[in-house]
Each structure stands twice: as structure tokens, then as C-alpha cells.
């Protein structure tokens, strides 16, 4: 444990400080998939990390879990309850993965061994990290299957994954992930492959269980609607950087960054009536040569000469943070 433990009054279970990830690509070049992200997740808090494909949100999750492509370079800090995970040996990482920090990903079939009974997989998740008897692990696994809503868990314990629907498989994955009461859960698009009524069940369950156990959740998603449904705070990513973060209420009611605003406006579900949807012109910049200034400037309706320099991070009136020159001016005018 580093001297940093508990510096946020014990509330933060996960802290990222100026985290950057560079991934090698062909031709000896590097892509800066994540560029200087600072973010905290508190105990029993759900923080949404939202962005479009290629924005770096899953790479960020991989950096926290210690699961990045070979040769990737990570700079900055990843603090789990104050302990820096960066540079941890794989052996030590394996000890905390599934114990202090757990992962639920998009495809439950890929997370489960198709040849093993689901109950045994949950019991194994327990015995990998706890010195308990087989019998005790089995009893605890049955209990966990019941808690996540598997009907008749004693009988279903011995069934292989293919006997379960997609939603039920994701419940099993959640049972295994939460088996050791992790401090932090990384949920990477956990409901993207599910039908919408099943998605609502799984999100409800996830929130219910993590709030009860005090687990902090980083919910990685492309869906702003999902963020509104279950998250407490939200961080919006664009081209490897967090451009805005704050409470869900603040960011959704008063989006400060032009990208956040454009993203919210382009959602048909929020738009209600026909007529053309606002679109974002242009394309995401090439991250092997990211622009020196604001990465959204080339597509931004309010871009200005000064956007050629990196935008400052400004505190918003509602207590959030936004990286945009526009707010630099309003913040100064207000002074």
C-alpha cells in the first residue's frame, strides 16, 4: 500500500491520475488510445464511462484490469484503494483480479467455460482467492446464484452455460464477479448484447448488488440512456480523453462540452419528434498523430483559433469538470 491510501477520506476505491496508454501498431508507430485521464470511483458509486467506438473507453478498462495488448505502455497512476497497480507483476495482478477488482464484459458466453457447470465456475471464483472447503464454496455459489436471480439455483448449479439464456448467463457472470466482494467492478458494455427488457433487469440487479456491497463500478458503455438509468456520475470520452465529467443530472441537464451536447442531441430517443437529427460532421482524428490542441476542434461548431492549444480543465457551476476553451472565458468573466 502506498502512502496515498485513504487520501480521499476513504471514499474513493479507484483513482486514475493522468493515465495514458500507448499501443504499438504496424510500422513501428504508436497509437495514443488513452491520453491523460483523471477519474475517481467511490465506494458504492456507479460511474459511467461513455463514448463512441474507438474513443479508448475499453482500453482504459483494460489498463485498470492489467489486460492490455503486449507491448502497450502505460503512464500515470491506477490506484486501487490507494495502491498503485501500474507495474504490478502479472502474478500479483492475478491475485487481485477476481478478488479486489473484477470484470463483467459484453459477451457472457466468452466469460464462461462452455464445458463446466455454471455453479462450479462460481465456486471456483471463490476458491481461487479464499481458503474454503469445496462444500462451503458450493454452498456460497448456490447462494450467489439465488441472489442474482437464477430460479431454482440448487438444481441449476450443475447445468452447463448453454442451458441458460443470454440474460441468465450474464447473471451467472455477475455472480462470479461479485463472489469475493470486490472493491471495484469494471463493467464493459455488460448489457449491449441483451434485449432491452432483459437489459433493464440486469442493470437493476447490478446497481442493487453493488450499492449493497459497497463496490464501486466503472460502467463502460456507448449508450447515454444506460448511463441515465443507473449511473451516479458520468465521464464522456472523445478520442482518448475525458472531455467532461460530472453528476449524471448536471451533465445531462446542462452539458458543457460541445461534444457532449452534440452526442445528446443526436439521440433519436431524446429527440422525440421527426425532423432531421443534428449530426456531427467529420471524423475522429487519427490517434497515431493526435492533434496538439483540442481533439474535437476539427468537428466543433464553436471552434476558435485558441483551440489549437490544449484546452484547460475548468470546474463547472454544478461541480463537474470540462476541458474546453469556451468555459475558460465564462469562468474568467464570472470572476
Amino acid at each position, binding site marked *: 500500500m502506498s502512502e496515498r491510501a485513504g487520501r480521499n477520506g476513504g471514499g474513493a476505491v479507484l483513482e486514475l491520475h493522468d493515465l495514458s496508454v500507448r499501443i504499438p501498431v504496424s510500422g513501428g508507430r504508436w497509437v495514443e488510445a488513452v491520453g491523460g485521464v483523471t477519474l475517481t470511483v467511490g465506494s458504492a458509486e456507479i460511474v459511467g464511462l461513455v463514448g*463512441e*467506438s474507438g474513443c479508448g473507453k475499453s482500453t482504459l478498462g483494460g489498463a485498470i484490469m492489467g489486460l492490455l495488448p503486449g507491448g502497450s505502455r502505460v503512464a500515470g497512476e491506477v490506484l486501487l484503494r490507494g495502491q498503485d497497480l501500474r507495474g504490478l507483476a502479472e502474478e500479483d495482478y492475478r491475485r487481485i483480479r477476481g478478488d479486489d477488482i473484477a470484470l463483467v464484459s459484453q459477451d457472457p458466453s466468452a466469460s464462461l467455460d462452455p464445458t463446466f457447470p455454471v455453479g462450479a465456475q462460481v465456486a471456483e471464483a471463490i476458491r481461487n482467492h479464499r481458503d474454503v472447503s469445496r462444500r462451503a464454496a458450493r454452498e456460497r455459489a448456490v447462494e450467489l446464484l439465488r441472489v442474482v436471480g437464477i430460479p431454482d439455483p440448487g438444481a441449476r448449479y450443475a447445468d452447463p452455460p448453454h442451458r441458460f*439464456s443470454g*440474460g*441468465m448467463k450474464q447473471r451467472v457472470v455477475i455472480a462470479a464477479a461479485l463472489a469475493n466482494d470486490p472493491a471495484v467492478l469494471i463493467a464493459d458494455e455488460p448489457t449491449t448484447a441483451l*434485449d*432491452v*427488457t*432483459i*437489459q*433493464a*433487469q440486469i*442493470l*437493476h440487479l447490478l*446497481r442493487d448488488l453493488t450499492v449493497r456491497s459497497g463496490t464501486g463500478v466503472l460502467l463502460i458503455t*456507448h*449508450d*447515454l*440512456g*444506460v*448511463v*441515465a*438509468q*443507473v449511473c451516479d456520475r458520468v465521464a464522456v470520452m472523445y478520442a482518448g480523453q475525458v472531455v467532461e465529467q460530472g453528476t*449524471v*443530472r448536471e451533465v*445531462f*441537464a446542462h452539458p458543457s462540452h460541445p461534444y457532449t451536447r*452534440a*452526442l*445528446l442531441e*443526436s*439521440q*433519436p*430517443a*431524446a*429527440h*422525440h419528434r*421527426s425532423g*432531421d*437529427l*443534428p*449530426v*456531427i460532421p467529420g*471524423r475522429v482524428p487519427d490517434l497515431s498523430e493526435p492533434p496538439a490542441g483540442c481533439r474535437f476542434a476539427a468537428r466543433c461548431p464553436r471552434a476558435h483559433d485558441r483551440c489549437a492549444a490544449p484546452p484547460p480543465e475548468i470546474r463547472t457551476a454544478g461541480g463537474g469538470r470540462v476541458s474546453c476553451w469556451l468555459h475558460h472565458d465564462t469562468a474568467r468573466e464570472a470572476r
Partner: protein
Amino acid sequence: MTGLLDVRGVVVTFPAPGAGPRRRRVHALSGVDLSMRRGQTHGLVGESGSGKSTLARCVLGLQRPDEGSVVFDGTEIVGLRGKALREVRRRIQPVFQDPLGSLDPRWTVGRSVRESLDAFGVGSALDRERRVKELLDLVGLSPDHADRHPSQLSGGQRQRVGIAAALASGPDLIVADEPVSALDVSVQAQILNLVSRLRRDLGVAVLFVSHDLGVVEHVSQEVSVMYLGRIVETGSREELFAEPVHPYTRALLDAIPVPEPDARLVHVPLPGDIPSPIDPPRGCRFHPRCSLRVDACSRERPPLRPVTAAHHVACPVALQARSQAGTAPVEH
């Protein structure tokens, strides 16, 4: 406006995976009716196993129903062959979810679009070259996109090519199956705007199949909600979204994640799993998950009944509750 498409009593079953003499069947569609007018966008929404894609394939003539009829502009297309089938195919064109699957990766964009013109013998060779450029322009691509290959395009650009190829033969109806599901929201918005423009400017009717009620609400004038092989509610966009009657439609609307500050998920809108279409529930297929269920629901199939002239629902219980609340249903 006159009818363009009239689907009546369509039934489709498939052999269930596995083998054996008593192989069970997947009940994909179990008696579906659907009508579309010219120049109208009809949204078809449902979750896994609802049969929405199978219905789209029946309309495209790619799936032959076990029973029922599909009448397109006065012509029965079930069992159609040869020249007559080719003519119907020219007038009903598909747009799929993943344009990479429908575009030949070795062909340039221009060739893919021209293929459709060639196949249906539209105009002279020179006309076709000109038409390709016009079509690319129509879908918001520049003329030099014609020389590129699908792998050189973004997902949104590929879907524009898919739409240009569908428009090439001058269809009256486009059947679009989840055309924006693989796209990011900012790109999705561009394609939805394009679909709306096709109807407005070209008068092409669109059967728009999607699992996303928000998207369907945005592009459609009429909406049908499917559940396990049947349509449970159908009506004008305005009525269906303002006053959904079927308990499934209501739950589906409740479950949609809406990006607004007050859209918290406070309760589970619909408990239970979607039953298997191999052995669907008897009576009303939604009854095992329904909060309004009465005894009759597990015995009798509820017919679609009018709520108003422009709105029908297959739930006598909800209809009765509604009429007792003061609004009498319209009798035909």
C-alpha cells in the same frame, strides 16, 4: 393513398436445431397481418424471437411462408417465379444491418451500385454511369467514392452505399433490417436522416425493422410491435407512443434507456425471460410475464381489436380496462 403491401395470416416455422424423427419446430411467425401504404415508413419493433426479421424476409420474397399471403401492389408474391418474381424484386429492395456482408469486397463502390442497374437493365451504359454518380450524390457521397472499395469506407459510408445500391432499381419499397444497429449514435443520426429523406423526396415506402423503439419512433409514421411471432399492437406513431395499450408495449417503452437527467431505472419494467419460440406459451404468448393476466389469457389467442380506427391491440383485458376508464373503443 392506396395499399402497397398486404400481408395476411403469414405462418413460418423452421426445424429446430438438432435431429431425430420427432424434431420440433421453431414458430417464427404465427399468423401475422400487416398493411402498408405507398410512401409510408412502417416501423417493425421487437426483441429476440419476435419474428421481425423473418417477416422482413417474407416481404423480400427470401422466405416462403408455410401459410398465408403477401400481396404487393395487387400481386401475390408467394410462389412467384421467373420474370414476374424479378420484377417484384426490382420494386422491393433490401438494406441490411451490415453492408460489409452485402457488398462484394473486391468490387468498387461504383461497380456495386451499377450492378443493380445492370441486373435490371436500367437505361443505356452511359445512362448507368451517370445514374451511379446521381445515386452516390443522393445518399451524400462524392463522385470519387465510386472508385473506392468497401474496406476503405467507414461504417456510415458503407451503409450509404448499401442504400444507394437499393435505390438503383427505382424501388417502391425498401425493407431495411436493423440498418443502424451497427453504427455509433452520431453516424446513426446521419443514416436516419437519409432514410427520412428517401420517403419525403422520393416517395419510397420503407419497412423499417429494429429492436430500438427510439429509432423506430423517429423514422416511422406507423408502428407494429411484435412478440414471439405475433403482432401485439399496431397503430399510428402518435397514438401508439402517446397511449400504448398492450402491457408488452408499455413495458418495452418503460425499459428503453432515455438519455435524460430524470430517466432513472426505478423498477424492473418486465420480469422473466423471453420464452423460446420452439415451445411458445399457449393462448396469449405474453401471458406468463404479464401483470394483467386472467385465466382466459392462457387458453385463447387474443385477436387484434381496434382501440381507435388507427390503433389496434391484441389484449382484451387492457382494452376493457381502458373502456371502463372512460374511453369507449371504436367498433367496426
